[in-house]
């Protein structure tokens, strides 16, 4: 894109296999998009942490039917508008499993963002978050 061309408001979406080594890539993409939305490094860091946390839960912490089907992915969608909107989704039965030593990941997410909605519907778990930009 030539320098000076207005940036698109259209969002980005990526999908990864349920492989823990790919969560870092999702975090990096989330931080890059957040940086487009706001110059605040505090916000960028918050988005990076929240997206990484949600993605990690979906990759490894959600119990349920995990298949080898091509669409068994964790999907991330980010849109920049009046706010920065982030959603992640994956196939699951909605139950979060974690060891007795682990911290409730939804609790950490709730502490990271004021706007968090977790839904379980039709075999899909979805996390929606947004930040003022």
């Amino acid at each position, binding site marked *: 894109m030539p320098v000076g061309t207005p940036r698109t408001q259209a969002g980005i979406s990526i999908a990864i296999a349920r492989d823990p080594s790919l969560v870092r890539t999702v975090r990096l993409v989330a931080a890059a998009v957040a940086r487009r939305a706001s110059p605040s490094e505090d916000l960028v860091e918050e988005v990076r942490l929240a997206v990484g946390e949600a993605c990690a839960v979906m990759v490894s912490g959600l119990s349920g039917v995990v298949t080898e089907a091509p669409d068994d992915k964790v999907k991330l969608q980010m849109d920049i508008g009046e706010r920065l909107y982030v959603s992640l989704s994956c196939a699951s039965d909605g139950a979060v499993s974690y060891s007795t*030593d682990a911290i409730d990941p939804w*609790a950490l997410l709730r502490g990271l963002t004021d706007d968090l909605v977790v839904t379980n519907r039709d075999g899909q778990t979805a996390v929606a978050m947004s930040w003022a930009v």
Partner: protein
Amino acid sequence: MLFVRSGTLCGTEEELGEEAMVDLSLDTRHENGHTIIEVSGEIDVYTAPKLRDRISELVADGNYHLIIDLERVDFLDSTGLGVLVGGLKKLRAHDGSMQLICTQDRLLKIFRITQLAKVFAIHESQADALAANGAN
């Protein structure tokens, strides 16, 4: 192919080479009856098992007083917190201790949100941690 680091497009994957792929490194040393683990990189769902294994090995070898230096940690999620909590439980079973070194606001915030700031002894430096635990 462009590669992204800390949210910034910064070069090709080939240019970054190994550095781009290194997620977590652990340097361990012994000092005044304590074992210090200096952690660098990102502690997440992928790398946390490496830290968990190191702590387990140290405990199995009879090292019950650990100081974990998080000053060079760029990222910590609930999986990493779980590893620290699990390690603390193991050490306490041997009347041991775990102390953390952390001054980064972004990490301290995570400890506060999860109320683990009340569980862990968090110090500003290795010297402070050694002094607090009565090292001589």
